[in-house]
């Protein structure tokens, strides 16, 4: 799985490309760990347009990222969610606790 982290002027954009399962989640969590020590911009965007597949491992990844961003005083929005991922997140009721666009 490819994780791209871009610092834009006033926001942070994270893009995931490939399949996010338990195997891939380990690498993704390591990359997100890099964000720990840095000051995060108030607005963070997670772009899932190139996410080919996800399962419940992706839910934990999203929740962990959301918490990290919120703890830093920011807000996370998740954009361009493909239909398979959307159905997984909906089955888990994720749209009630996170911002999906």
């Amino acid at each position: 799985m490819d994780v791209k982290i871009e610092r834009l002027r006033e926001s942070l954009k994270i893009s995931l490309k490939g399949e996010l399962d338990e195997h891939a989640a380990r690498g993704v969590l390591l990359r997100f760990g890099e964000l720990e020590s840095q000051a995060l911009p108030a607005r963070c965007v997670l772009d899932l347009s190139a996410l080919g597949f996800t399962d419940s491992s992706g839910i934990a990844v999203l929740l962990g990222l959301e918490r990290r961003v919120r703890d830093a005083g920011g807000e996370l929005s998740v954009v361009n969610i493909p239909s398979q991922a959307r159905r997984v997140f909906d089955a888990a009721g994720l749209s009630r606790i996170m911002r999906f666009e």
Partner: protein
Amino acid sequence: MRPINEMTLTFPARSVNEGFARLSAAAFAAQLDPTMDELGDIKTVISEAVTNCIVHAYPDALGSVRMRCRIYPDGRFEASVSDGGVGIADIEKAREPMFSTGGAERSGMGFTIMESFADSFTVRSRPGKGTTVRFTKRISPRAKR
């Protein structure tokens, strides 16, 4: 009803095999000419079931996972995923949303997702012996789409 085709795969409970298992099941199910959504549903349930065997069944050893897929003349896809691991003492509890014995990287939503993506779904388990989950997915006939 007798299956018109079936296949069984056995592989070590290693995380690299999660992708292998769901892609193999999807390639097999392709004989029923499913839609992208139906294929996505099958991949999702397989991925959850196989990941559970890999993450939960074998805490101290590298065990194996067996996946059997069948297709039926009425257009049903059926799969079972089994391990010979620690088993589940209280299945009802394990199936509750957000119940997990895993750490922060688990959400406890695997069974909930499997239930909502499959047409029928059962879990059988014996502590110390292992766990089998079985599900079916109806593939809509092409002419009706």
